[in-house]
């Protein structure tokens, strides 16, 4: 009886393939919904993507991750770069018709920086001391200290509508509903949103940059990658953003109806060591832990060859900054063993090294992030065992994992970083940035690195700045702050009817940056 019901329902539904996509609508697939579209509270990838369709920053990200004029037409600073004058674009309106002026800029920054609002990244911009309107289209930014990231990051915050949010007390911003009904000056407006299902955007007819070429964007939230792959293959969607490795292998190459995008991403995966522990403080032990790990095999096997073995803390996805000329750690278990011997760790009973009667044993903390992560843990465990280091793998749910990381309550942790377009790692590596002040949960201390990082944050000359971060990469390669594993790829697929300039595509959330310039073939 069950089988009969099954067969009936099964055949009844088989006709859903090959839908006709509307001529004016780009159907995009994303693997997740955004909790909120309020830039004041978004810490989520999808929030950033959808917000950027609706809102504009003063300065946007260009094709080589360089800052380009957006709502700001130009900017200049005094000798110490503490006072900046920013000129705003004229004739810009919000999607509801209200004009954009310096009032909105002052209001936006006052709101982001007001502790009562609870903007999660407030500390990152706390160096912005005061924002003043010098006229309707001129704004002055006073900084408490020089910051090389001011233009690229500080001026990249989405501009909020003062005429809407100005009425809301700071402490009530979180529950104001703006995150559900955002208003901005951006290329699109949000017209419908059904959570975990779909978001519909309509182009903003008043957009200052010109009319976006695609009238409508439908984002379908698909919570399962198999359905996403099927939708692409059946011609039910135009764009699949951020294809996971497993699905990319299924889709790869052979579908003539799809255009594939495959770019080195801005993210690295690594194991963070807690250098406050005596065993891990010794650089020879950390070096041995990289030499002894066959990362080539990991990438070829577990990752289907679809990742790059990492060579340092700047990922391959930032070619303007990535420095290949640093100390490398090819798989060399003999060298790993020699380093451990030199550090005084002698092979003990049971194949685990010992020093002063203590075994060389660490716990690898991992968030419960699925089979792939677990396999990586097991892979590392096996390779370390071969050189005499015992690794216990401990899985935790994400919330508990983050809490332990924040308290530096770990020995080795599976984690990663990236997403930023600048090589600055001050809060992760500077010795003044141990939690709770900063992100240096691994208690990495290298005063030469400190000096370079601090200088890099104050240096605005691009040539000198590049030299500083090259130096940082050389120093950190010799004294590795983490056990780097691999840099990931960004993957996407387009249907053939989408036209875009491939040379302008950037990975990850930046893929959407030029959506206003994409078009649909009839």
């Amino acid at each position, binding site marked *: 009886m069950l089988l009969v019901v099954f067969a009936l329902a099964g055949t009844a539904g088989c006709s859903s393939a090959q839908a006709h996509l509307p001529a004016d609508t780009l159907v995009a697939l994303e693997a997740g919904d955004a909790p909120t579209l309020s830039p004041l509270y978004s810490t989520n990838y999808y929030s950033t993507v959808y917000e950027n369709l609706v809102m504009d920053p003063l300065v946007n990200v260009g094709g080589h991750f360089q800052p380009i004029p957006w709502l700001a037409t130009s900017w200049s600073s005094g000798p110490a770069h503490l006072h900046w004058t920013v000129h705003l674009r004229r004739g810009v309106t919000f999607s509801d018709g209200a004009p954009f002026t310096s009032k909105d800029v002052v209001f936006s920054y006052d709101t982001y920086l007001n502790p009562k609002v609870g903007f999660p990244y407030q500390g990152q911009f706390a160096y912005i001391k005061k924002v003043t309107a010098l006229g309707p289209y001129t704004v002055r930014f006073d900084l408490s200290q020089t910051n090389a990231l001011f233009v690229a990051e500080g001026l990249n915050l989405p501009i909020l509508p003062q005429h809407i949010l100005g009425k809301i007390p700071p402490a009530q911003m*979180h529950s104001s509903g703006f995150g559900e009904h955002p208003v901005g000056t951006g290329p699109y407006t949000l017209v419908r949103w059904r959570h975990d299902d779909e978001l519909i955007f309509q182009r903003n007819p008043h957009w200052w940059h010109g009319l976006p070429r695609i009238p409508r964007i439908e984002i379908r939230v698909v919570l399962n990658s198999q359905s996403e792959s099927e939708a692409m293959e059946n011609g039910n969607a135009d764009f699949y953003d951020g294809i996971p490795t497993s699905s990319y292998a299924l889709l790869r190459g052979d579908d003539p109806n799809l255009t594939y995008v495959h770019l080195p991403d801005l993210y690295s995966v690594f194991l963070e060591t807690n250098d406050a522990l005596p065993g891990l403080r010794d650089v020879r032990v950390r070096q041995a832990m990289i030499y002894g790990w066959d990362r080539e095999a990991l990438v070829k096997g577990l990752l289907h060859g679809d990742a790059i073995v990492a060579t340092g803390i700047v990922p391959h996805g930032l070619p303007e900054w990535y420095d290949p000329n640093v100390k490398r750690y090819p798989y060399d278990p003999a060298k790993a063993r020699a380093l451990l011997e030199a550090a005084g760790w002698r092979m003990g009973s049971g194949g685990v090294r010992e020093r002063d009667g203590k075994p060389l044993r660490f716990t690898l903390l991992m968030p419960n992030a699925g089979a792939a992560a677990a396999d990586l843990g097991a892979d590392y465990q096996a390779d370390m065992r071969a050189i005499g280091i015992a690794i216990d793998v401990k899985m935790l749910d994400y919330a508990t994992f983050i809490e332990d990381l924040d308290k530096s309550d770990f020995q080795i942790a599976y984690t990663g970083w990236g997403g930023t377009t600048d090589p600055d790692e001050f809060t992760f590596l500077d010795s003044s940035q141990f939690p709770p002040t900063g992100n240096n949960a691994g208690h990495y201390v290298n005063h030469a690195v400190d000096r370079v990082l601090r200088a890099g944050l104050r240096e605005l000359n691009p040539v000198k700045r590049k030299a500083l971060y090259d130096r940082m990469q050389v120093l950190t390669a010799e004294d590795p702050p983490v056990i780097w594993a691999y840099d990931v790829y960004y993957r996407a697929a387009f249907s053939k009817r989408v036209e875009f300039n491939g040379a302008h595509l950037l990975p990850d959330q930046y893929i959407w940056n030029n959506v206003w310039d994409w078009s649909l073939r009839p």
Partner: protein
Amino acid sequence: MTTYIVRRVLGAIPLLLVITLISYALMGLAPGGPTALLTREAHAMTPAAREQMLAMLGLNRPWYVQYFYWLSALVLHGNLGTSYVDGRPVLEKILEKLPITVELLGLSQLLTLAIAIPVGVRSAVRRNSLFDHAATVVAFATYGIPVFWLGLMMIDLFALHLHWFPASGYASLGHAHDPLDHLRHLILPAVTLSIVSLAGWIRYQRGAMLNVLDEPYVRTARSKGLSERVVIYRHALRNALIPTLTLLGLTLPALVGGAYFLEYVFSIPGMGYLYLTAVFERDYPTVMGITLLTAVLVVLGNLLADIAYAVADPRVRYD
């Protein structure tokens, strides 16, 4: 009867209080805090801004104080609070997802009854026959299967190998409002849920029927010369359905629990999906809202079962 209902409803209030208190305590004492806003990147927050945000969400107080505030907002204003993640009212988030879960539960229950009642009756009527033994064996074999594991196996067989059904989700692209499409997506999880609950229902229906078949009125009906079909289905079954009605209320907790896990396994964006996501993000207000709603449903289910029992059987009186 009215007095009975009032008494039962009043009696449920302390029960619900205890349930919410224990849930809040478990959550508050568990390691890890809300992650959605306070992610690791949020370390770029100054300690002062971090404190401010915790204060904004009321997280700077001990869990029992938080519970008190949560409870008073609920009792005084009927307010379930707003989510930490997106600042939306919890009730709105729940109501958005409720229909999907109700659809799944309803479909599964319908399937279960449609199979369990005839099978149970037939097992009773042909007691110790091959059919009876087979039904018993199958029932016990499926009874112990963990629902999430069975869900994965169903996906593997019927979606990945046979391609009869979609592996997950609630609607195909562009079919958000197509009931047939929903049905196609919900069949696998609904059948999974039915399979694990079927055993109880079949055994229960069989037992109830056996009890009734020995009653004098069944003998009377037979001796009147009525056909066996009429005796079984009109005279015996009517009475044998009473215990089954009770079961409807009593199995609700297990059914809801199973549905929640299956929603996660099948990526169906219903209440269970919302619930588990909220648990992982430590979104306390959403977790509490769904816990409360589920507890109310369970208490209500029990009450309705007792009332249905009284209505169906005139011999049962509550005074």
